[in-house]
């Protein structure tokens, strides 16, 4: 599944990060590397972007970019 499919409050572990060059580098730099845990915190009032917790801080990204991040739901 992909990051945007998490429900609010749910967590998962990143399997792979896709996307085009600049975007992908930014995601990796911000700490979204494989095997990292993430939690979906909320969606913006208009439904997009989303807010996640990663490595102990809050990060926001768009759904169209979150779709490129493969995760495994925490069971």
């Amino acid at each position, binding site marked *: 599944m992909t990051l945007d499919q998490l429900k609010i409050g749910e967590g998962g572990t990143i399997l792979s990060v896709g996307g085009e060059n600049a975007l992908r580098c930014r995601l*990796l730099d911000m700490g979204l590397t494989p095997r990292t845990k993430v939690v979906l915190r909320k969606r*913006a009032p208009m439904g997009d972007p989303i807010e996640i917790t990663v490595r102990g801080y*809050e990060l926001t990204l768009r759904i169209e970019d979150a779709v490129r991040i493969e995760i495994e739901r925490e069971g």
Partner: protein
Amino acid sequence: MILALAGNQNCGKTTLFNALTGSNQHVGNFPGVTVDQKIGEIKGQKNCSVVDLPGIYSLRPYTQEEIVTRDFIIKEKPDGIINIVDATNIERNLYLTLQLLTLRIPTVLALNMMDEVHANGGTVDVRKMGEALGIPVVPISAARGDGVSELIDRAVEVAKTRTLPKVFDFCSEDSPVHRCIHAVVHLIQDHAENIGISARFCTAKLMEGDEDFAERLELDENEKELLEHCIVEMENESGLDRQAALADMRYAYIEKVVAASVVKAHESREHLRSARLDRILTGKFTAIPVFLGIMFLTFWLTFDVIGQRLSDLLALGIDALTNLVDKGLTAYGINPVVHSLIVDGIFAGVGGVLAFLPIIVTLFFFLSILEDTGYMARVAFVMDKLLRKIGLSGRSIVPMLIGFGCSVPAIMATRTVSSDRDRKMTILLIPYMSCSAKIPIYAFFTAAFFPKHKALVMISLYVLGILVGILAALLLKSTAFRGKPVPFVMELPNYRLPSVKSVALLLWEKAKDFIERAFSVIFLATIIIWFLQSFDTRLNVVENSADSLLAGIGTLIAPVFRPLGFADWRCATSLITGLVAKESVVSTMEILLDGSALSSLFGTTRMAVSFLVFTLLYTPCAAAIATVKREWHSGVRTALVVVNQCAVAWVAAFLVYQIGGLFF
């Protein structure tokens, strides 16, 4: 000795910079670096200055800030780096640190917000962390000033003794990444030495596929092939591509460092508080009303309550002083021309503009608080979807909001927008956000024509500017700026109270800037205008200002404004002086009116509104134009911006005047 201050955004860098330097700062310009940097002398040290580099997360060349920071460090070769790190968010902050360490420059780590970590039950073993990173680590609290003097001592010490970071190998022994890095370092060692940049750093950049570095290092085809071969082998062996492999290596090392030296705090009070605040401030139903409310409150307090009252008070003071000088000069029997220059020219002009200082400072006060608390990042989060519709990202909202204060810092703030396309488009749209220097014009007109609906008329003007801006954006999006907006990946920092010192320093900076402009550009403009207005072509003092030089110039271009309803040469003249600084429009008009009422110039309210619409949209002032040029590096494009704004203003005022004529 020059030290560079580097760190992530939102880690307290500006606060530390202020703590290091006090108010002893200035903007410097380094050759080869396109952007002005803030430099300050470090307190208690001789000949030791520190440069405030932009807040960045990585040394990749994707955003303007990253390029600036990288170029500064590589080209200027500072004697040392102070790397400030937010201890409450240590993993991501250390990511930049690892990249800085490969630059092989004496470095000290400033572990900021340690007070917050301790208060929430966390600890950091500074000695262990220092060993793992190979550099001195100094715990500080920039906001309270704790540890700052020790930080200065350590930074000066490593810079003087040229103590390089001891650790620069972040890959685990015998991993594919390790083998690749060592092979590449070996391959390019000589090239790197030739250009004087650390081979480690070059290696990382080459492995990340940085074309710029392949050029700089002047690798031949053979070497390029070998390089590619090493990287592909590493990718195959590790199962990660080059980008992910390097990021993964750094974060893996950081996790090791953190596990060995950090006892994590329980969920901090600051974080809980932020989450609670966010329930409202970014809540599904509350976010947008709260945002509009906050903006309305900001503008209402600025333009109606605090700023306006202070301005009125200051205007009273200036009037009293003018009277005093007037009487004194008359009693002294000074030459009437000099008397006119001082009283009608300088005092009326500069004094009139100076009276608006409180409004501008008040607006910056609120904007800086919104920025420093972390609220602006939330606004970007909330508004992103909307801005995407006009082809931008939420990040552009901050520069645009600053545009309501002053276009100059707003245009500079577009550096935080990471794509070139978004950045240029944001710069083009900033002039539509009515800047605070136009407030004097609005205030002057609304006082005369709409005494009962001042705030309403002002807000309408702002809204009109925004609407025209949206139209322009839609047009740009489908023509010159087709293409995708930037990736929007942004941190939402914990809410923090801004330090009084930072806000005070910022306000002082703005006030100083404004006063400087009042006494330089505007002062000069008032004298020129006074001269043109007081003399005729034969340099005789004119009795009637309609015979003056200025009247001649104004009359020449006035017909252009006939379809807009204000063909009087005095209107045209005021607008010309507005090119120098918007505040001058009012001061010029005051001089030209020579005591008579504004209604003598604008027969109908319709004319006045048309004039207001024109001033709302026409060319930005000289300072803003200069900033656009500096940020955009193109004289032609900048000229186009000016021409375009004038054309848009003309059309908008024309429509307002002509359509208004149908109803009134």
